[in-house]
């Protein structure tokens, strides 16, 4: 398929293909990108997915609703709480059950902690993709504190499975509030370091500013959500537009940028971390009393017949869960609208005409988690 193309100066150059992945340091998993290159300039990118497909949607069709929740941990493993929450909220809405305020607030704090830990990991990996290897370890240092909080309260660090339909699995640990406050205090001093190390660094700015511009119209038409879409000015924050849990009672800004380049996407996430910190600060001191488990949700859950949809804002964008129920213990059909999937396929549109090094930077700012795309 290699063809000779004539450039404007009539020098014959040859385009060539490079397979980036499935095993490649910067594809963040087993993603395969087929690059069509002219020198170092990228002509076309074709993402090939399916290397870690585990058929979570099909498995859900035989699992009970409680079991589905634990599968969602393994989709976007960096937004584990939000994924759990999405399914739990869907079940609660379908059963028309209202969980207690305590559960709502705990869920919100946990979600924001998850968002912070996801963005921290993204920041470290972004630095590493651009060659600043030290950022990775600094990000993990801060992430460690959040993981400890999860481990103490939920019993696991990554696949927490803390939310259950009708509440949360355990009450929060007695140390929880103190630990979160300690974390917030230390993280507020560490976040400016992130700026010193990367955001203000001249090399980093040169690498990211004005690179990989995604216009607002394109973001909307490709369905790019999350910080990636908001950096292009596309207001899509589910927490604002369709508030769930305790998001309607906290003050926070939806981060909107207008440039849509790689640096805006980077900056949007950094600012989002500040917002998450502020949300946690507002909630952590006044967690209301109440049941952690709604008693009306039975052990065996049967959803009424019909179609249900619930969306939450994960660290990557809008995660939608769509369930068709035929009244049985497990759904007739379940479909996840995962943010990573939509965000990945805008890559080809963004990257044409840029260099390989820019592709890596752009891929970083889209913040791909491959299990989220493949499911």
């Amino acid at each position: 398929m290699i063809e000779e193309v004539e450039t404007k100066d009539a020098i014959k150059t040859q385009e060539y293909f490079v397979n980036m992945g499935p095993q490649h340091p910067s594809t963040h998993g087993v993603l395969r990108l087929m690059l069509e290159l002219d020198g170092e300039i990228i002509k076309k990118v074709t993402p090939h997915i399916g290397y870690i497909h585990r058929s979570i949607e099909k498995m859900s069709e035989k699992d009970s609703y409680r079991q589905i929740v634990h599968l969602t941990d393994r989709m976007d493993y960096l937004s584990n709480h939000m994924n759990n929450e999405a399914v739990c909220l869907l079940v609660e809405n379908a059963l028309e059950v209202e969980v207690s305020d305590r559960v709502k607030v705990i869920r919100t704090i946990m979600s924001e902690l998850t968002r912070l830990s996801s963005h921290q990991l993204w920041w470290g990996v972004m630095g590493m993709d651009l060659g600043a290897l030290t950022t990775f370890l600094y990000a993990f240092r801060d992430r460690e504190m959040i993981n400890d909080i999860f481990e103490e309260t939920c019993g696991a660090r990554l696949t927490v499975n803390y939310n259950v339909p009708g509440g949360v699995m355990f009450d929060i640990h007695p140390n929880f509030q103190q630990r979160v406050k300690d974390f917030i205090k230390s993280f507020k001093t560490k976040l400016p370091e992130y700026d010193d190390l990367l955001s203000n660094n001249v090399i980093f700015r040169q690498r990211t500013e004005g690179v990989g511009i995604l216009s607002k119209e394109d973001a909307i038409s490709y369905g790019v959500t999350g910080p990636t879409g908001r950096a292009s000015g596309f207001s899509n924050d589910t927490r604002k537009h369709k508030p769930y849990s305790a998001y309607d009672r906290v003050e926070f800004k939806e981060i909107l940028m207008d440039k849509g380049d790689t640096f805006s996407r980077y900056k949007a996430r950094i600012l989002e971390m500040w917002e998450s910190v502020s949300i946690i600060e507002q909630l952590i001191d006044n967690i209301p009393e109440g049941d952690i488990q709604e008693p009306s949700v039975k052990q065996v859950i049967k959803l009424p017949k019909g179609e249900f949809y619930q969306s939450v804002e994960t660290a990557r964008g809008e995660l939608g869960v769509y369930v068709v129920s035929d009244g049985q213990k497990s759904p007739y059909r379940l479909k996840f609208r995962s943010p990573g999937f939509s965000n990945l396929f805008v890559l080809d549109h963004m990257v044409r005409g840029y260099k390989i090094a820019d592709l890596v930077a752009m891929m970083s700012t889209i913040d791909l988690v491959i299990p989220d795309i493949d499911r």
Partner: protein
Amino acid sequence: MKEPLDLTPLTQSIHDYLLSYLSPFWTTTVEWVIIGVLLIAFVALSVMGLVYIERKVAAFFQLRLGPNRVGKWGLLQTLADFLKLLMKEHITSKNADKFLFNLAPFIIVIASFLAIGAIPFALGLQAMDINIGLFYITAASSIGVLGILIGGWAGNNKYSLIGALRSGAQVVSYEISAVLSLLTIVVLSGSLQLSTIIESQSDGWWIFKGHLPVFIAFIMFLIAGTAETNRGPFDLAEAESELTAGFHTEYSGIKFAMFFLAEYVNLFIIAAVGATVFLGGWMPFHIGNWAAFNEVMNYIPPVIWFFFKVGFVIGLIMWFKWTFPRLRIDQLLVLEWKYLLPINLVNLIVVAFIAMMGWYF
């Protein structure tokens, strides 16, 4: 007055001793063999040390402990890694140009060995002190890029070809800046011979004597030298996150180890040249004609001074590498041709003016 420890009598006595038993022909041959063995042993040891130091330094920058399992404080880790690399399989990719593929590591190693011969380790401890020493080192190390180019091409891998092309463009252009920044000291000291350059710093190192322009030249040399050795933030030829391993993607086992070795030898050479030219090499820290102070400083042997300064420069280069993100290829060339080169040229003219007017200490 205590003079710096001179090793010339030692080498001279070895020479005389050999000459008393052997013919001049065999004396020279035996001396060459001794020097060769010493250099190889030094390179092997220093590279192992450097790799260990690099890993430890990186670990401390990154809040880790670094190697700590093999031997005390992990001191034998690099030896273990080297043995592992020795025993690994040699894999040559299909359709590779086998001759060039096997040749490339040797070219790059030989180039660095050629250069290291002219470096003065201490007073009287220099394999060859030719009258154009500085020029010779830059000339010899300029061959090394051929190893990268050939190695990247012969592996028959697109990643390594891209890496090789990047590296070619990078090294060829940054060589200009490195040489121009070294020329400032050549202008000031009036010689290309390394021993003369060091001798001219007996009343203070050039970086202190030469005011701001020499300091600028030192910074320029550090940048250009880092780029020439393909180290971060200029490691585009390897660019782990873009090209997996760049020009040595297809290499395995001991051939990969040779690229690794050459990278660290080059780092040592760059640091040694920088230390010799700007920081006085083995010359102890002297202040003008303050005899008492200079005498105290002379009690520290020159070898220690030399390695202390080289260590300082290497530390700076490592600090860059573990802090900064990598540049893109076009930005790399912009940096060279739009910033380093003009500044270097202007700087050279300023230094020439200073030298002409005698405005240095």
